[in-house]
C-alpha cells in the first residue's frame, strides 16, 4: 500500500486509539465515581481497594472494546477517504481490487495512489472531536462531585414543632370552675388549700404562656404538686407500712386493711381479729397487739393529731386497758372488747374516708386538668398519673352474693341499698363524694321527668326504663 493511504490510515489509527483511551478512562472514572457515591449513600467511607481497581478494570475493558470497534481497517479507511475527500469510490475500489490484475484495475490503483499522495493528511478530519473533550470533563466533574458529597448519615429525628399556645376563654373558665369545685369539696383543709393555691398559680401562669410546651410544663408541674400535697397530708400509707412491719399479726392485718383504704376490708379484718380473742383466752395477745400498734404509730412519724393516728392510738389504748383487767378474757372484758372494736371500726373508717376523699378529689382534679389542657397520661411522670378507681384492690374481693348483711355489704355509711360498685362518686353539684345510690337516684329522677314530659322517643324510653329496672333489681353488676 502506498504512502498516501498509509498516512491516512496511521492518522485514523492514532485517532481511534486516542479516543478509545480517553473514553475508556472516562468510563472508568464514571464507574469509580458511582461506586464512591453508592458507598457514601450506604453510610460507608469510600474504599480505595474497591473503586480504584473496578474503575481501572472498566477503563481497560471499555477501551479495548471501543478500539476493536473503531479499529481503522483498510476498508474502513478507504470508505472514509472516499466519503470525506469525495474521491468517487476510488479508495474503496483500490482496496477491494487489491492484488487483482487487469490494465484498468492497475491504472485505477496507480491513479488513486497518486491522488492520495497529493492530498494533505490534515484534510481528513476526525469527526466528533467534541466527544473526546466533553466526556473527560464530565468524568472529572463526576469524580470531584462524588468525593465532595458528604457521607450519608441518618437524619436526626424530627423535633416536634412547638406551636403557639393561646389560653382560650373556655379553658380559663373551666380552670376557674375547677378551682371553685375544689374549694367546695370535702378535701381536708390543708391539701385543699395547697391544691387551690397551685391551681390559682396555674391560672396566672397560663395567661402569660405563649407556647404549648410552656403550658404543658406548667400543668404537669401543678399535677405533681397536687399529688405531693395529697400524699404529704394523707398518713395511711405511712401508718400501714409501719404496722406491716410489726410482730403482731393483728397489727399487720390492720395495716394491710388500712393500705387498701377500704372500709369493707377493714371491717373484715377487725372482725377476724376480734374472733381471735375468744372468752377465756390469754389477754397477753391483746396487750401485745396494743403495744405493737402504738409502737408502729410512733415509728410511722405521723403527727399525733392526725385523725387516723388518733383513732388507732385510742384503739390501742382501749386494748391495753382491757388486757390489764385480767390474765384471761372474761365475759365483761369481751363485751368491752366488742365495744372497742366497734368504735375503732367507725373511727378508723371515718379517718380513712377523709384520706380517701383527699385522694379522690386530687385525682379528679388531675383528670380535669388533663382534659382541659389535652395532657396525655403518657406525658406525666409515672408517679403523677391518676389512680384507676375501677381497679381498687378490694373490688376483686367484693361479692355481694356472699354478703347476707346489707348493712355491712359495702360502701361508707349505714349499709343502705348499694347500686353496683361500693365506690363513692364525686358529685360536682355538691362538690363532694357521695354514695352511688344518691347520684343514681338523682339521675333517675331527671330521666323520669323527661319520660313523663314525653320528650324522649319511645325506643329511648324503653331503653332507659329497662336500664334502671336492671339497676334497681340489684343484679350486682356495675351500673354501666
Amino acid at each position, binding site marked *: 500500500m502506498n504512502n498516501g493511504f498509509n498516512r491516512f490510515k496511521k492518522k485514523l489509527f492514532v485517532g481511534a486509539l486516542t479516543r478509545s483511551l480517553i473514553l475508556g478512562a472516562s468510563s472508568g472514572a464514571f464507574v469509580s465515581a458511582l461506586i464512591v457515591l453508592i458507598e457514601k449513600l450506604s453510610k460507608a467511607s469510600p474504599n480505595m481497594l474497591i473503586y480504584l481497581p473496578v474503575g481501572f478494570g472498566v477503563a481497560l475493558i471499555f477501551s479495548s472494546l471501543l478500539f476493536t470497534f473503531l479499529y481503522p481497517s483498510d476498508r474502513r479507511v478507504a470508505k472514509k477517504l472516499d466519503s470525506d475527500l469525495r474521491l*468517487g*469510490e*476510488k479508495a*474503496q*475500489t483500490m482496496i*477491494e*481490487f487489491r492484488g*487483482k490484475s*487487469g*490494465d*484498468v*484495475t*492497475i*491504472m*485505477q490503483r496507480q*491513479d488513486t495512489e497518486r491522488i492520495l499522495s497529493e492530498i494533505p493528511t490534515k484534510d481528513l478530519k476526525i469527526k466528533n472531536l467534541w466527544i473526546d473533550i466533553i466526556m473527560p470533563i464530565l468524568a472529572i466533574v463526576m469524580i470531584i462531585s462524588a468525593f465532595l458529597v458528604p457521607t450519608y448519615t441518618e437524619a436526626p429525628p424530627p423535633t416536634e414543632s412547638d406551636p403557639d399556645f393561646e389560653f382560650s376563654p373556655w379553658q380559663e373558665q373551666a380552670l376557674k370552675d375547677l378551682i371553685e369545685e375544689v374549694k367546695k369539696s370535702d378535701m381536708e383543709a390543708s391539701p385543699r388549700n395547697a391544691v387551690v393555691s397551685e391551681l390559682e398559680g396555674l391560672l396566672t401562669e397560663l395567661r402569660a404562656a405563649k407556647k404549648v410546651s410552656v403550658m404543658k410544663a406548667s400543668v404537669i408541674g401543678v399535677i405533681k404538686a397536687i399529688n405531693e400535697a395529697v400524699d404529704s397530708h394523707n398518713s395511711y400509707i405511712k401508718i400501714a407500712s409501719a404496722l406491716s412491719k410489726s410482730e403482731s399479726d393483728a397489727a399487720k392485718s390492720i395495716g394491710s386493711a388500712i393500705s387498701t383504704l377500704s372500709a369493707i376490708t377493714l371491717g373484715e379484718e377487725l372482725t377476724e381479729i376480734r374472733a381471735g380473742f375468744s372468752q377465756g383466752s390469754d389477754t397477753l395477745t391483746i396487750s401485745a397487739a396494743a403495744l405493737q400498734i402504738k409502737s408502729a404509730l410512733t415509728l410511722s412519724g405521723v403527727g399525733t393529731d392526725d385523725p387516723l393516728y388518733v383513732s388507732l392510738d385510742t384503739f390501742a389504748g382501749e386494748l391495753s386497758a382491757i388486757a390489764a383487767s385480767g390474765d384471761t378474757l372474761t365475759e365483761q372484758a369481751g363485751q368491752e372488747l366488742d365495744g372497742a372494736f366497734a368504735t375503732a371500726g367507725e373511727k378508723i373508717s371515718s379517718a380513712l374516708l377523709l384520706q380517701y376523699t383527699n385522694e379522690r378529689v386530687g385525682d379528679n382534679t388531675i383528670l380535669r386538668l388533663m382534659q382541659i389542657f389535652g395532657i396525655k397520661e403518657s406525658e406525666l411522670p409515672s408517679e403523677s398519673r391518676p389512680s384507676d378507681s375501677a381497679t381498687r384492690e378490694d373490688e376483686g374481693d367484693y361479692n355481694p352474693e356472699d354478703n347476707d348483711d346489707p348493712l355491712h355489704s359495702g360502701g361508707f355509711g349505714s349499709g343502705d341499698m348499694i347500686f353496683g360498685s361500693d365506690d363513692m362518686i364525686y358529685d360536682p353539684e355538691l362538690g363532694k363524694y357521695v354514695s352511688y345510690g344518691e347520684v343514681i337516684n338523682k339521675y333517675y329522677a331527671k330521666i323520669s321527668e323527661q319520660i313523663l314530659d314525653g320528650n324522649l322517643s319511645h325506643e329511648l324510653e324503653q331503653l332507659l326504663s329497662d336500664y334502671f329496672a336492671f339497676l334497681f333489681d340489684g343484679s350486682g353488676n356495675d351500673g354501666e
Partner: protein
Amino acid sequence: MENIEKVQGFNASIVKIKEELRRDVVGQDEIVDNVITAIIAGGNVLLEGVPGVGKTRLVRSLGKVLSLPFSRIQFTPDLMPSDVTGTVVIEKDADGKMVSSFRKGPIFANLVLADEINRATPKTQSSMLEVMQEHKVTVANNSYALEEPFFVLATENPIEQDGTYPLPEAQMDRFMFKLVMKFPANDELVDIVKMTQITMDETASAVIDGETILEMRALASTVPVIDEVLDYAIRIVSGTHPELDRASDTAKKYIKYGASPRAAQALITAAKVRALMNGNYNVSYDDIDALALPVLRHRIKINYTAVNDRLTVDDVIAMLVREIKK
C-alpha cells in the same frame, strides 16, 4: 500494458468524438454523451423528441465521426418487416439462371435510425426489435449477422398519437436508454440557424472506426465496480418493484410495474463506460445516479396516484434514487 495506451487513448477518442459532433449538433450535450455511452456499451437508444430537434442529424454525424455506415428507416403503418430486414428475391444471375438471393434491408448498417418506430405495426416493430436483440436477421431459415458495432437509435414522436402503436413494455426493455431531446434553448437555436444557413450537410469528420469502438467496449467492460456500488445499483432496480419486500416507499406509492433485471445490467455496463469517459477508472455512486433516469424511465410504469399527484416518471425516479441509501 498495451491496453494502458488504449485506456489513455480512450479519453482522447471520446474528446475527439465530442468535438466533431459539436460541429454538427448544437447543444444537447447530455444526449450526445448518453448516445456515445450507449454505442460504446453496446446498447440501443430510444429517443423522444419533437420533429426538427436534430435526431437524424445526430445519428448521421455519428456515422461520419465513427466511420460507420448509417441508415435511416422511416417507420410508417404500411412498413413491412421485410422492408426493414430485407427479403429474398428471385433474379437472374450472370449465367441467366433464375436464382434466389437475399436483398439486405436498411437494417444492415452499423448505425440505424428507426424513425417514429411507434408508427409501425407491432409485427414490423417486433422484427426490428428482434434484430436489435440478436444482431442478426433470419430470413427463410437463413441467418445473416449484422456487422458490429451495431447501434439503433429509435425515435418516438410524442405529439402524434393517432394511428400509432406504442411499444409494449417488454420490448421497451431492449433499449438501454430512453433519452428526451428537448427543444433547444434560444442561444442554441441561434447557433443552429446560423450553422444551417451555411450548409445543411454534416461537416463532422471521421475520428475513429468501428474496430476502435469495439476495443473501447472491451476496455470499458474491465472497469472495476466495488460490491457496494453494485449493490446500490441492484437496490435501485429492486426498489422499483412495489410487490417486493425490499421495495422503496416511492415504488409502493407511485409505481405500478418495476424494471427488469436488464435495467441492472444496463446500469452497470453504461456506468463503466461513463466512468472511463469522465477519466475515472472505477464506477462510482455518481455514475449510477447519473444513469438511473435514462435507464429506468422507459422500464417502469407509474400508477394513477402519481398521475393524481402530477408526478412524471422522471420525478418518481428522482424520488426513488434519493430514497435509496448509499
